[in-house]
């Protein structure tokens, strides 16, 4: 049974649960008034913002609910040629790491900032799974403002979950690895002695959102999977699910599925803070990038940090405790009261619910079943509140509606199951199409869920949309959970591969939007705050073009005297001061992307011309009726030629307004 592959389990499931959870098919699943409930009339706003992780596209997709309309793709860990993120000189530093510039990552989970356990609509945090990083996106601008890399980590999966006042964003390593101050060049069969599972606590500044890596906890070398902070009564604790307590290092699908129970690790982070203050940590020399985007200069900088403080869970006995949890737990979710901790064993046919109160008592009474690599294991019965029996097969994630109900996704039996937290009784089940991974209730992991809607993010789409060859769209399904029974309302396609998502009532975000940047506040070193200031400056083989754009021309719009071998930097300032008037900038043959410059902003595109000729440049954003006229040329001469550097705007001899200017050389 343990080694049966998923499809085997699937077949088994449909037999075992025949009649109870057999998918009913679309026709019966959608009720008559579904269309009305998702219809948002032209010109009307959606009720809710839905932030959906992009998975292997490395970005965050923003949808409106209940319509399922895509509003924006926010680039975080992947370059985005569409708006120049990762291509412009200003944003390149955002993707710097200790391994150098990385144009991609795998973005799994998102978490909105909270105050008192409720969403405050200020920031959203995102994890990078492959090269461990955590990012912060400002929800006033929908821009990535900060990315911090995580040392001693690999596979940053149980991240970026937060404490109830956004004191910390956490990150648990999915791959146990030797810490950075150890020699990593070791044989794989030395796993048990050399590999560690490190948990990071990233502090968040209350006012600015600035992150810093406050401390790490060195835990046994298991695979940390997901996590959630305690809230209310359990504030001060963090819970991490983990698998592979077998510490297998090959054919994990079999060898990491041997133990009947793995763990949820409870971390007393308030205690960890005390130990940190008392100087109990070990300073580990390492290197990790810390990248920040400064809105006043509109420029990102990357700094390489050198050190992190690591607390040992083995030595400091009362930070970490293991709660046995059946069958490779994945989801690790805490209910709105903070009392119940729900673990979802990927291979389990039940859902265990731990009680925080019982856990504290068990710790106090030392009800230990033993130790795992120096960490006390609490007795299963001592922390267990109860088990939801026969909920379905392959539970993954649980969210809450604030009315005493929990909703769990089931990958194998492909359904969402609603159950009562107190009685542990199953109340309702609805099929998903197909194989749901994460699910989300609006505000569903906070103290005060908004409820109303549940979205299932499915792993298999099959026949749900018009087919597009072997690579199909991804899919989300919207359910109305306001009544006793869940009602499927809508399918909508998503991009990349959605994992965890967050949603928040639109009112918390929509009125705070920055509409444009005040040009008077633009502190970009190459800003050009008016056409009169436009110029071209040569510094050796570097040429800086101080360019402006306004409907519907660039200044300057013609440049001559560039030579092969030059590095040309177009610093384009958008002079507009109105909402929704971006200008674009692109030049022929550039081995780079375009710029998309917001009003009042300055962006820089680097161009290294390879051949002599006349190279057109133009505005890529349809900015006005005369957008197509928004163009110019750059004349490139062979290396060593003596064409003088000149630039001009409107320089026709018969209506000269701006005379041809000779460029400045430094």
């Amino acid at each position, binding site marked *: 049974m343990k080694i049966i592959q998923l499809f085997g389990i699937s077949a088994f499931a449909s037999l075992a649960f025949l009649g109870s959870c057999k998918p009913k098919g679309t026709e019966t699943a959608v009720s008559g008034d579904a269309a009305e409930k998702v219809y948002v009339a032209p010109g009307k706003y959606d009720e809710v913002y839905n932030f959906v992780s992009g998975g292997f596209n490395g970005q965050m997709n923003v949808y409106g609910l209940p319509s399922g309309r895509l509003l924006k793709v926010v680039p975080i860990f992947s370059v985005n040629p569409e708006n120049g993120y990762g291509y412009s000189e200003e944003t390149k530093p955002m993707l710097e790491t200790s391994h150098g510039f990385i144009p991609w990552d795998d973005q799994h989970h998102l978490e909105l900032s909270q105050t008192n356990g409720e969403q405050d609509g200020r920031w959203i945090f995102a994890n990078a799974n492959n090269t461990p990083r955590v990012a912060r996106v400002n929800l006033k601008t929908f821009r990535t403002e900060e990315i911090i890399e995580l040392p001693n980590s690999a596979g940053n999966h149980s991240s970026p979950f937060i404490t109830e006042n956004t004191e910390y964003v956490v990150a648990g390593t999915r791959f146990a690895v030797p810490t950075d101050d150890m020699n990593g060049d070791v044989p794989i069969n030395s796993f048990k002695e050399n590999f560690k599972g490190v948990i990071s606590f990233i502090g968040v500044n209350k006012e600015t959102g600035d992150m810093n890596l406050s401390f790490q906890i060195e835990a046994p070398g298991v695979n940390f999977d997901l996590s959630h902070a305690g809230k209310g009564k359990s504030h001060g604790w963090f819970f991490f699910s983990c698998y592979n307590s077998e510490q297998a290092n090959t054919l994990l699908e079999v060898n990491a599925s041997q133990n009947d129970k793995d763990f949820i690790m409870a971390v007393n982070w308030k205690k960890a803070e005390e130990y940190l203050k008392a100087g109990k940590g070990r300073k580990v020399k390492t290197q990790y990038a810390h990248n920040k985007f400064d809105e006043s200069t509109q420029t990102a900088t990357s700094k390489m940090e050198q050190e992190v403080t690591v607390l040992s869970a083995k030595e400091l006995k009362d930070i970490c405790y293991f709660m046995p949890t059946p069958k490779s737990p994945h989801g690790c979710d805490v209910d709105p009261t903070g009392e119940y901790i729900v673990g979802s064993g990927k291979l389990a046919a039940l859902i265990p619910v731990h009680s925080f109160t019982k856990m504290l008592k068990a710790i106090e009474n030392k009800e230990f079943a033993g130790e795992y690599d120096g960490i006390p294991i609490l007795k299963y019965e001592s922390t267990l509140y109860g088990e939801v029996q026969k909920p379905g097969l392959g539970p993954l994630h649980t969210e809450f509606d604030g009315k005493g109900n929990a909703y769990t996704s089931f990958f194998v039996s492909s359904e969402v199951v609603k159950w009562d937290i107190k009685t542990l009784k199953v109340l309702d089940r609805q099929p998903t199409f197909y194989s749901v991974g994460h699910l989300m209730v609006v505000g569903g992991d906070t103290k005060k869920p908004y409820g109303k809607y549940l979205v299932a993010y499915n792993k298999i789409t099959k026949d749900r949309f018009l087919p597009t060859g072997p690579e199909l769209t991804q899919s989300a399904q919207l359910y109305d959970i306001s009544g006793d029974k869940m009602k499927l309302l809508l399918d909508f396609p998503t991009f990349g591969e959605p994992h965890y998502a967050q949603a928040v009532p639109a009112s918390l975000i929509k009125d705070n939007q920055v509409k444009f940047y005040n040009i008077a506040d633009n502190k970009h070193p190459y800003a050009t705050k008016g056409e009169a200031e436009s110029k071209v400056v040569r510094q050796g083989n570097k040429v800086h073009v101080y360019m402006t754009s306004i*409907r519907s021309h660039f200044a300057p719009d013609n440049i001559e005297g560039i030579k092969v071998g030059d590095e040309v930097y177009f610093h384009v300032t958008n002079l507009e001061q109105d909402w929704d008037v971006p200008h674009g900038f692109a030049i022929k043959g550039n081995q780079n992307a375009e710029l998309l410059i917001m009003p009042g902003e300055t962006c820089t595109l680097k161009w290294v011309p390879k051949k002599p000729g006349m190279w057109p440049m133009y505005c890529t954003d349809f900015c006005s009726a005369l957008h197509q006229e928004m163009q110019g040329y750059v004349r490139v001469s062979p290396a060593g030629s003596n064409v003088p550097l000149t630039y001009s705007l409107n320089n026709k001899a018969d209506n000269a307004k701006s005379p041809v200017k000779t460029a400045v050389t430094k």
Partner: protein
Amino acid sequence: MKNNSLSKLSKILLITSGIGLIISIFVPIWAIYLEAPQYPEGLGMFLHAHKITGDYEIINGLNHYIGMKEIHQEDFWEFKILPYALGFFAALAFLTVFINNKKWLYFFAALFLIFGVAFMVDFYLWEYDYGHNLNPNAAIVVPGMSYQPPLLGFKQLLNFGAYSYPDIGGWIMFGVGIILVVLSYLEIKSSKKVI
């Protein structure tokens, strides 16, 4: 002997007018609103006694397509005069009450009406100048088209709907004008009765 002193009503309304005119120095006098498909939220421009506020810079940006001149506060000599003119009329209102003479009221009324008409004529001329004096090299030249905003009310100008209305200060000025006319009429009537 004719009784030339003012009625109680006249005194009260004159003092009210004086206060109103002082207020009008500090509030917008005239408002121009523009609406277009691209500007569902509308663009507003407000003329005060001494300045322009609102979205006039955005309007300038849009107007360059059709070759309209840019609107700049410094170009209006009126802004230097208008606060004093309004102050002068407020003072005149109080003075009329103080002197308590119907002839002063008639004089004040006549002078204010001339001022009001002059204000509107001046406003019209500015609008005419902006609407007709177009750059011949503008990107968009529609033969025969001018862009003079309405003096009062609504007018469609290409894709823009333009509205022009008095704002608080303007309404006060209108009100003061009407009060002065009505008071003069009443005072003349009462003078004739006495005769």
